[in-house]
Structure formats: structure tokens, C-alpha cells
């Protein structure tokens, strides 16, 4: 989609009550929602009459942008657009930001009457549960040393669904069990937040404390003043993000903004089920640390045990469940056997993890730099993609191709542009790659084939050193 609609500001910020009437589709916006104070984006603007355009006013139709080439075919234009779309997905900020890698997150799911709505198929409730299971799996895939708990909001109270733990199977079991039940009653934001606060109270200071709320309703029936709760959340440095299923709600917006030190990018309202899934799975990426005091860094002692695979008929009891098992991991300090990792050694209390768990998070910390598009004049130095050997198109003899560059200059900003010569170059090693390898290197493997494949030029200068030196 185009990014033109992300600046939509709800004009009726003064009558927030009207939001609760119904879920009008027109009130949804794709990007981060501006709060009641969101008008500050045009605060200094003297002519307030120039209203921002709403999302639906700026629709870009794919057939409007297609330009026929000289022989009347649109293959080139279609190909270009497809490449642009591909690249748009991967161009992101690659500054190595400090992220809260060790996370403590409470997932709050709305189980109120509002979830019975059928605007998402089959119902909001069932779809949310399905996505929540996906979220749990992906969360532990991305954050293996993090902890997760699940809380529900039903009948005006907060409901403990799954205790805070690092075991995905337990969470998924509890979520599956919810499917049998019906959503009913009112949700209570305050109760849920208070329960999350209590659950996160013991989270160690070096990890993050986060609450993620999936909120279907447009109201909240609270026993007390929610502003007090928000103030408490701030002092306990708990960060709240909300995914709204219906429309923007003023209190949600305020809650997210205040607990994220003024950053309002954490309140989103979904457009459709695909967007819902995208927003939810985006939360599996570790959050950026914003202020110094949010993270008190510390050095953790951890054990990296080796696995033992008892092939013979011998079985032994594991220390964690006292069950007879064949294989397992031996604690590197006291040799007690545990059956799965990550775990805390039941005998000596050492945190036991696999080094592969840590390594899974490294690409968040040391992202691969975006590759640049190579214009025709520089394209002649390569004939084929460095990594997959696919031949590149030959440079044109005549300059008839030079109609493209005018669209290129502006593209460097946000949405990805496709390279006119089909080549994308790494700025560190100077090698050229095709678009498929560009996508693959940035989204899947997180290595540059060129930099890794030849260390003669930059001996002992590895990716991470370059990245860390810059920060």
C-alpha cells in the first residue's frame, strides 16, 4: 500500500464519545494513530483550514501508474512495479538500535461481548485466538530467552489465562482451551492493567516489561480512575501497546502514548485480518530501548550445556519433572539433567540456555545494511549476480532507457524503488546482486554473501565490528 495515508488525523477529537457509537470503517487508519493531542503535528500551522486528507481520498490505483512502453506492452512496467513492491517490504531502518532483548510481556486478550462481532471471519474472537497462538509461537522463536503471560478481560474483571513462563506449549494449550468458551460481559482495561502490573512486578530490571492488548471493545468499565493506573505503570516502567479491532479510543491512545514516553506508534487499529496479523507479528520484534533508565543492564551468568543422547536402554530421571527420560541436557555447573531448554537448573539455579537461542537474536542487534540501487553507468562492472549467478540485463547501448531516472530520485526516502539496471549493490564490499538475493539476504539470512565470501579486502573487519564502531 502507499504510505500516503498514514498521516490521517481524526478530526473529531473533541467529541471522542462519538467513537463509541459504532465501528465505522471510515474512521480506521493504517499508520500510528494520533491521539487527541495528535493535532500537534500541525500545531504551528497558521492556516488550520488546510485539513489533512483522509485515507480514502488518496487511493492509488495500480492501473493509473502503469506506463506503456514503446512497443505497447506493459511487461516492463508490471515487472518494475513488482520489484518495487518487493523492495518496499525490506527497506527499513538499519541503524543498530539498542533493543530490549530479554523481554517480559503480558498479552491481554479482550474476551468481552465486542468479540462476538463477525466483521472478521469467522468471528473476532476465534480469529484473535488463532493469531494469538501464532503470536506465541513466533514470539518464542524470536525471543527465546523471554517470558510471556496471558490475561483475558471478561465480565468486567481480569482473568488469568496463562501464568508468566517461558514455555510456549503451555500458553498454546491454555489458548486452545479458551476456544470452548464464549466471549461475554464488558472489558475492564484498568483491571487488566493492574493484574499485568502485579504479574510484572517481579520481572528483573535488565529485561523489558511490556503489555500488549488486543482490544475489540470501544468502552472500558473500570472500578476506579484509570489515570492513577497509568501513572503507576509509568513509575514501574511498563510499556503498553494496543491493537484495536474496531476504532480509535481516546483512552487507549493516551495510555500508549504516556507509557511509551510520548511515542504514539504503539497504538494501532487494524484495517482487515491481514493487517491484524501483520501488526501482531510485528510485536515479536524486540522493542527499541528509548531512555537510559528503562534498561538497567547487567551481566548474567548462564550455562551452555551439552546434550546427551542416551541411545542405549538406560534411562534416567530428569531433575525438572522427575520423569524417566532418555536424552536431555546436563547442567554445566552441577551435572543435573533437565529435559528441555531454556530452563533454570533445579539444583543450582544456573540459567541454562543453548547458544543457538542467543544467536537467534543477533540479527536484531546487528542488522544488515540496505543495499543501494545501481544506476546504468555503474552497472557495467558486473555481468551476473554475485551470489546466485543469474545474468543481469546488459546495459543499453543507446540512452533511450533514460526515461526512468526521474522516478528514482524521490524514491530513496521511504518506499522501495527498483533498480533500473536490476542490480543492487552492497556498500561495504561493492558487489552486485539481483533483487531475489537482495530480498533473501535481508529477510532470511541476514548476511551479505559478498562480505562473508571474501575477507581479503577487509581482513578481520566483520559486520558487527563495522556496526558497533558506528554507534
Amino acid at each position, binding site marked *: 500500500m502507499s504510505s500516503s495515508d498514514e498521516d490521517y488525523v481524526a478530526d473529531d477529537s473533541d467529541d471522542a464519545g462519538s467513537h463509541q457509537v459504532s465501528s465505522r470503517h471510515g474512521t480506521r487508519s493504517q499508520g500510528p494513530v494520533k491521539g487527541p493531542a495528535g493535532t500537534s503535528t500541525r500545531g504551528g500551522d497558521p492556516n488550520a483550514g488546510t485539513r489533512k486528507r483522509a485515507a480514502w481520498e488518496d487511493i492509488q490505483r495500480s492501473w493509473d501508474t502503469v506506463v506503456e512502453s514503446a512497443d505497447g506492452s506493459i511487461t516492463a512496467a508490471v515487472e518494475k512495479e513488482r520489484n518495487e513492491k*518487493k523492495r518496499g517490504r525490506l527497506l527499513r531502518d538499519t541503524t543498530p538500535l539498542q533493543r530490549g532483548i530479554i523481554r517480559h510481556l503480558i498479552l491481554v486478550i479482550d474476551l468481552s461481548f465486542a468479540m462476538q462481532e463477525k466483521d472478521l471471519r469467522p468471528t473476532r474472537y476465534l480469529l484473535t485466538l488463532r493469531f494469538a497462538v501464532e503470536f506465541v509461537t513466533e514470539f518464542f522463536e524470536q525471543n527465546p530467552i523471554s517470558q510471556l503471560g496471558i490475561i483475558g478481560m471478561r465480565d468486567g474483571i481480569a482473568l488469568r489465562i496463562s501464568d508468566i513462563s517461558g514455555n510456549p506449549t503451555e500458553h498454546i494449550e491454555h489458548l486452545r482451551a479458551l476456544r470452548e468458551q464464549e466471549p461475554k460481559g464488558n472489558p475492564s482495561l484498568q483491571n487488566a492493567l493492574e493484574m499485568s502490573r502485579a504479574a510484572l512486578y517481579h520481572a528483573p530490571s535488565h529485561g523489558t516489561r511490556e503489555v500488549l492488548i488486543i482490544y475489540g471493545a470501544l468502552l472500558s468499565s473500570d472500578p476506579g480512575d484509570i489515570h492513577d493506573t497509568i501513572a503507576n505503570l509509568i513509575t514501574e516502567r511498563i510499556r503498553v501497546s494496543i491493537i484495536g479491532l474496531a476504532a480509535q479510543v481516546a483512552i487507549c491512545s493516551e495510555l500508549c502514548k504516556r507509557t511509551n514516553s510520548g511515542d504514539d506508534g504503539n497504538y494501532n487499529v487494524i484495517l482487515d485480518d491481514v493487517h491484524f496479523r501483520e501488526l501482531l507479528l510485528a510485536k515479536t520484534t524486540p522493542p527499541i530501548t528509548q531512555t537510559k533508565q528503562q534498561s*538497567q543492564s547487567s551481566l548474567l551468568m548462564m550455562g*551452555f550445556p551439552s546434550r546427551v543422547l542416551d541411545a542405549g536402554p538406560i534411562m534416567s530421571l530428569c531433575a525438572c519433572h522427575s520423569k524417566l527420560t532418555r536424552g536431555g541436557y546436563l547442567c554445566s555447573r552441577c551435572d543435573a539433567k533437565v529435559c528441555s531448554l531454556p530452563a533454570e537448573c533445579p539444583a543450582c539455579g544456573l540459567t541454562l540456555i543453548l547458544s*543457538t537461542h542467543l*544467536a537467534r537474536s543477533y540479527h536484531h542487534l546487528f542488522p544488515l545494511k540496505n543495499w543501494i540501487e545501481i544506476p546504468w553507468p555503474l552497472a557495467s562492472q558486473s555481468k551476473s549476480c554475485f551470489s546466485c549467478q543469474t545474468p543481469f540485463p546488459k546495459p543499453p547501448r543507446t540512452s533511450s532507457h533514460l526515461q526512468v531516472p526521474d522516478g528514482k530520485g524521490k524514491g530513496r526516502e521511504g518506499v522501495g524503488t527498483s533498480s533500473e539496471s536490476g542490480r543492487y549493490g552492497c556498500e561495504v564490499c561493492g558487489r552486485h546482486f539481483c533483487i531475489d538475493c537482495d530480498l533473501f539476504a535481508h529477510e532470511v*539470512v541476514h548476511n551479505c554473501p559478498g562480505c562473508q565470501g571474501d575477507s581479503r579486502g577487509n581482513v578481520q573487519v566483520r559486520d558487527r565490528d563495522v556496526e558497533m564502531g558506528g554507534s
Partner: protein
Amino acid sequence: MDRVDGTEHYKGDVSQGPIPALLLIILDTNPHAWALLNRDLPLSEAIANLLVFINAHLAFHNANQVAVVASHCHRAVWLYPRPGSSSEGVDMAGGETPAINDANKYRPFAQIEDQLLTSLRDLIQTTTPDDVASTNTTQMAGALTLALAHINKATLAFSQQIGGTETTADHLGSSDDTSGLQSRILVLSVSGDLAHQYIPIMNTTFAAQRMRVPIDILKLAGDTVFLQQASDTTRGIYLQLRSPQGFLQYLMMAFLPDQTSRKLLVAPTQEVVDFRAACFCHRKVVDVGFVCSICLSIFCSVPEGAVCLTCSTHLSLGEYGSKPAVVPRKKKKRRKLNGGDDTPSRPGTPVPNK
């Protein structure tokens, strides 16, 4: 999509019957390690055996593919297909090498043999003594990255040939179906220490796991913890070559079956997988380490001044190394008793040396 011509009728041909497999071989050509191995298994003999194995793989299925990457001392190089050979394919068949026109050899076999040997010779000739002298490791991470990029491209091309509707994102999401190209990586590893490539190798391991590409390791010499972890994570086979004379037999018996047949076979497994990590400060492999909570760097001992070497954050030590507070009484006697088990991280603590 792009197919507007009437080539529909090929579709049925490819999609039924056994699925073709792509075998990607990474040959570790580290000169140091091969020199050590020369008495038991010279490189030439290993290549000859490898070619027999490649031919066997190609003979399994008409559409089976193979690709070979060399992981040399300073760079990773394509051996087959040769870089640039696809564009000048005409001149390859031009008959400069008599081997290709040998009537007694199946043509694809001869082609691979010829290209592989030519590029290997090129590689060895372009290696200067300086290159060899300056390092004793190999660019395994680069070779794995190249291999995975090739697999990605081949899978895309294959799925386009069959269905033609998948895009990159779809094929990543739905790669669990069995209709796609079955790819696997076989690493013939001779080098030992790879600790300085820890992060890139781990990145490739997770990428392979996500793409469901098993990484098989045949270890001819040395021992590498990370390759062990890679094969374990991706459910590949890890084998240590015990008798170099049986090299070909190892290849044929253990590594020839593809993923589909492996489900029906009892594959060799690793008894003990070493999951220890390398510390970032000395590249030592550690059992118990210290992890920075910001950047997850692993240290073998508490870094000096408790400042992380990677992200230069000041780290609080938490509970580690704290001792119960003792009421100071007779100072001299106490010190002597406690001095021995103090942490090595605090060099400033004065210990009377008597």
C-alpha cells in the same frame, strides 16, 4: 503470470513422480588442512571420489541438480556452475577440452567434471603464498550464504516452473509442503576453528532451518562445534570420517538419500552435541559464561571494570560474586582465608603473598 505461450503441457510432466533434488556441496579447500591430510586422503583422490558421488546423485533423477562451492582460505568461490559460464555456454561446448566429447562418458557427467576441475585449478593457481600464510581458517560462512542464496533462487525458479503463482514471501511461509524442490547442503569440512565467524554461521543456520534445508556435515579432519550445531538445528547428518580410505563409501551410504528417503531410513545421529558457545573476548569455547543483557555478548570472565566490550555499557554484576557481609574483626587472618576464592575479575584486591 509470465507464461503466455502454450507450454502448459510440461506442467504435468514435472509435478508427478519423484521430486527432483538439489544437492549443494561445499568443499572446504583450506590448503593447511589438506596438507595435513595429504598422507591419508590427497585432495585429488577426494575430488575423484566426490565426482563419483555427484554422478550418482544426478543419476537418481532426470531433473536432479548439483552445485559446488569452494570455501577457500580467504574467499568463497563457485566451482560449479562456473561464474560467467552460463552466458558463454557456447564457447564451453566449443570443444577446447577433449573430455567433453568423449563418447564413452555421459555428457552431463563430463561437463560437471570438466567445469569443476577447471575452476578448482583456477582457484589454486590464483592463490598466492601470502593468502595461504596469512590465515589458517576458511570462509565457511560465506560459502554457506552463497549456497543458501543459490537454493533460494533455484526453489523460486522451480516453483515458477510448476505453479507459477508463488512469490518469495509465500514460498518462505509455505515451504513445509513437499511439492517444492528438495534441497540439501553437504559440507565436506577439513578445517577446525571457525570461532571468528560465529554470528554469520549462526545466521545461515537459522535461515536454513527456516527454509527446511538440512545441512549435512562430513568431517574429514578437525572438529567444529558450530557445524555440529548447524547440522543438529537443521536436522542434517553429522559424520566424522574415521577411515579416510572409505571416503566414497561414507558419501554413498550416508549422504546420498534425499529428505524423502531419509524418513524411511535410520540415519546416523550424533551422540553428544556440543552446544557450548564461543566467548566474544578471547574466542574461547565456554561452558559457563557471562551474557550482557543489552547485546547478548558472551564473555568467558567478567570483563574489566564490568564494561561490555561490544556495546560499552556499564553492567551491574547482579548476584554474581557477592559474598555474605562479614563483620571485620582480625583483619590479617580473615584476608588470608578469603583471598583464595575471590573472583578473578577484581585484580585490584590486594592479596598478601606469603
